[in-house]
């Protein structure tokens, strides 16, 4: 059994490394379509980490919404602007050095913060329900108000899209 657990551990690290590599690909590739594909791979890898953390529902939703929905829309947009698909674009400019310095500062601050936080593991947290049923009960019980508010926001966004996309009716000629 120890061997299996060791294998699983190495598998998770491999997935994490792959996510990093693909994330680098997103910001370095010069072709937009390649970047989009790398992003899709990175998002699938993230779903893999969710599965390793036993949050299967979240993993499923992650793939359904991000890979199935968002990435498809991104690729669709890239294909609609067809001249971009074949062209190569430089992704960095003269400001990359100050950006790296700023980013390095941010990352150090973040790591310091993560290391300082105690991350308590309590009995209650270990027993927390992560099944689809528990999530459904929470959404319909404790968090019913935010849930409904989010649906109204989404509905407003949908109606807004229709209003923006709608062509004005041709004016009546006198």
């Amino acid at each position, binding site marked *: *059994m120890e061997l*299996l657990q060791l294998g699983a551990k190495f598998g998770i690290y491999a997935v994490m490394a792959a996510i990093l590599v693909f994330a680098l690909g997103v910001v370095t590739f010069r072709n937009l379509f390649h970047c989009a*594909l790398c992003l899709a791979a990175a998002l699938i890898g993230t779903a893999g980490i969710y599965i390793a953390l036993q949050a299967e529902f979240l*993993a499923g939703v992650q793939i*359904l919404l991000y890979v*199935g*929905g968002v990435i*498809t829309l991104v690729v*669709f947009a890239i*294909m609609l602007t067809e001249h971009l698909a074949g062209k190569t674009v430089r992704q960095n400019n003269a400001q990359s050095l100050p950006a790296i310095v700023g980013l390095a500062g941010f990352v150090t601050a973040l790591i310091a913060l993560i290391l300082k936080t105690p991350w308590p593991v309590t009995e209650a947290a270990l027993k927390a329900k992560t099944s689809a049923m528990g999530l459904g009960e929470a959404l319909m019980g404790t968090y019913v108000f935010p849930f409904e508010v989010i649906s109204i926001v989404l509905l407003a966004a949908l109606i807004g899209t229709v209003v923006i996309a709608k062509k004005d009716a041709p004016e009546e000629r006198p």
Partner: protein
Amino acid sequence: MENIGSFIDMIFVTAKAWILALLGQFLPVWIVVLASIVISGVAILCLGPVIMMYLTLLERKVIGRIQNRYGPNRVGIWGLLQPIADGIKMFTKEDIVPANADKLIHLLAPIMTVVPALMIFVVVPFGRQMTAADLNIGFLYFIAVSSITILPIFMASWSSRNKYSLLGGMRTAAQLISYEVPMTLAAVPAIMMSQSLSTNTIVLTQAGSFGLNWFIFTPWGIVGFIVFFLCATAECNRPPFDLPEAESELVAGFHTEYSGMKFALFYMAEYMNAFTLCGIAATLFLGGWQGPFLPSWVWFFGKTLALICIMIWFRGTFPRFRVDHLMAFAWKFLLPLTLVNILLTALWQFTSASAAWLFSIMILAAMLYMLVKLNRVFVPEKRNYVLAD
């Protein structure tokens, strides 16, 4: 008699348990755990391609009969070796890659299409205790994995650098995104009534007496099943929804530039998707492997093959949709129908049986009438152009 029935019912499960017990006698536990995974995995990896091979033969035979001819009958008796001959032909064909193609993505696309198609097999309940992995998010897994199938098609169409491929890819995106919405919503009633996302539990709740308490025998089940099945047909690009590869308009759509085994991989993914989608439709609404007298896996394969035959029948009968009709059908007809169907299911749960039937049929009839009225195609008046002649 009882014993023989249950033995045949559980024959595959028993075989796997027997192999594992044999291994367990002289191997450590962790190898047995691995072997359990490997056995299920190998079974699926063999099942997928074999199903694909014989579905192509079935399709050619049935289409042949519909068109009043025999279909393949030269290789082996009844043409049974035809798929193998096709496979050998595909392997020996020249692999042509267009000069301007994006070589890597052009290579990856056909490989990537097969992966999600095979992954869906994991949650299909083939029989009693015959789900490879009984995930508690089974149906969500199915929806999520089948939503990935869009990406490889995009990769194929974009990397070919061919305008017909690109058009095919665009059509695929529009079609698959549109039909995914009513497909998911059509399955919601079945999930509501079985109170579980696990495909195995959904089948178990449809047991009843004689294993005949199928969801399709309720008004919401019929509507849900028809919508789900139509969307499934659209999801695997089969006629009459085969716009992404419409040969009369787009040469062959997204796989125009593929030849040999790469082309065959696209076909393999398509047929495996057709099989799994029919299997999931049978699981959700036709009771999966539930049924009287016969072994469970016979019921499952029988139902699935019957649904596939209906798909083939569609292909032999219906002409192809026009693009705007296709979109309008999904968004203006199927989507409202599924939303009403979900409300109807809730009503069904809280009213007595006879009253529920009456209510449901009344609401559904009113809804259908309204939708048909609203979706009436606008036909402009015929005009005479006096000055045109």
